[in-house]
């Protein structure tokens, strides 16, 4: 073929080329959400860690509770923006089921968390719940919903790791209610944030191992 200026490849070269291009395609098309999960791990570990350390039950709270709450809010907004950016970037130029599923999945988070916020706020306003119960209500329900959405993600992308992570987050939700305040924040921080960190590392290692030997990412 006149346009094939390259010399013919050996079978080994050819397999190596396949592995390299495959790795790149998978990385760019989002098969490995290591960085995304890393961002969430940071938000949970730092945010809930601060809320725990700022709890008034400590002899010396690290900072006023409202400061910690603002930090958590900012970290989560940042992580949500990054996720939205990640989702749009991964599906850029892709048409078909993947893009549709990705968009539906993204909206599922937004819709269900908006409803959760509305329900919890109404419950809090309607009843005479003490601050500790309110705190447990929020940590328990948001972990449950987060976990359930990861279960759905695991089913959609046939990803056992993601499904297992969903199960773990749901277990954390139950545990957070059982341990009470302020231990629930520690569960959110270490078990929840730690879970994100472990998941992120597993994807990272997998991505590395998936590539051919001796090929670094850049």
């Amino acid at each position, binding site marked *: 073929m006149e346009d*094939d200026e390259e010399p*013919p490849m050996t079978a*080994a070269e050819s*397999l190596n*080329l396949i592995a390299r*291009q495959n790795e*790149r395609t998978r990385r760019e*098309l989002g098969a490995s959400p290591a960085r995304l999960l890393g961002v969430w791990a940071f938000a949970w570990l730092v945010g809930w860690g601060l809320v725990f350390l700022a709890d008034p039950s400590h002899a010396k709270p690290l900072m006023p509770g409202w400061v910690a709450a603002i930090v958590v809010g900012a970290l989560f907004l940042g992580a949500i923006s990054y996720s939205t950016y990640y989702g749009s970037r991964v599906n850029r130029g892709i048409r*078909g089921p993947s893009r549709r599923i990705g968009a539906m999945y993204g909206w599922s988070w937004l819709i269900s968390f908006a409803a959760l916020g509305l329900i919890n706020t109404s419950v809090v306003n309607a009843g005479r719940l003490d601050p500790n119960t309110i705190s447990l209500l929020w940590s328990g329900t948001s972990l449950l919903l987060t976990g359930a959405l990861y279960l759905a993600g695991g089913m959609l992308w046939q990803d056992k790791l993601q499904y297992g992570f969903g199960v773990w987050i749901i277990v954390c939700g139950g545990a957070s209610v059982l341990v009470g305040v302020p231990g629930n924040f520690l569960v959110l921080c270490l078990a929840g944030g730690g879970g994100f960190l472990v998941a992120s590392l597993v994807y990272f290692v997998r991505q590395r191992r998936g590539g051919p030997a001796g090929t670094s990412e850049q």
Partner: protein
Amino acid sequence: MTDAGLPELDPVIHAQARLRVTVALAGLRHGDQITFPRLQQLLDMTAGNLSTHLRKLEDAGYVDITKAYEHRTPVTLVKLTAKGRAAFESYTDALHRLLDATGGS
């Protein structure tokens, strides 16, 4: 590689550029299509180069190229056909058999 027992490598796929195009397209999820510019970015190829190779793959029936309009802007969508996917699978099979036969690793 001329021994009678050794498998033949599909000449359409067995060329660096077209092999990479095929691998990238095979990496899409079932039923998905990819736009020409995104494919170009995944491969770091010039538009002219990619067009040439896509045309060869299309002529062999391995690739399906659709022109569509999105918000009045023309888009070129590319995907691997079932025939292309099968050809890629038998190509990689052949590579593995070649390696086994020649004792390479």
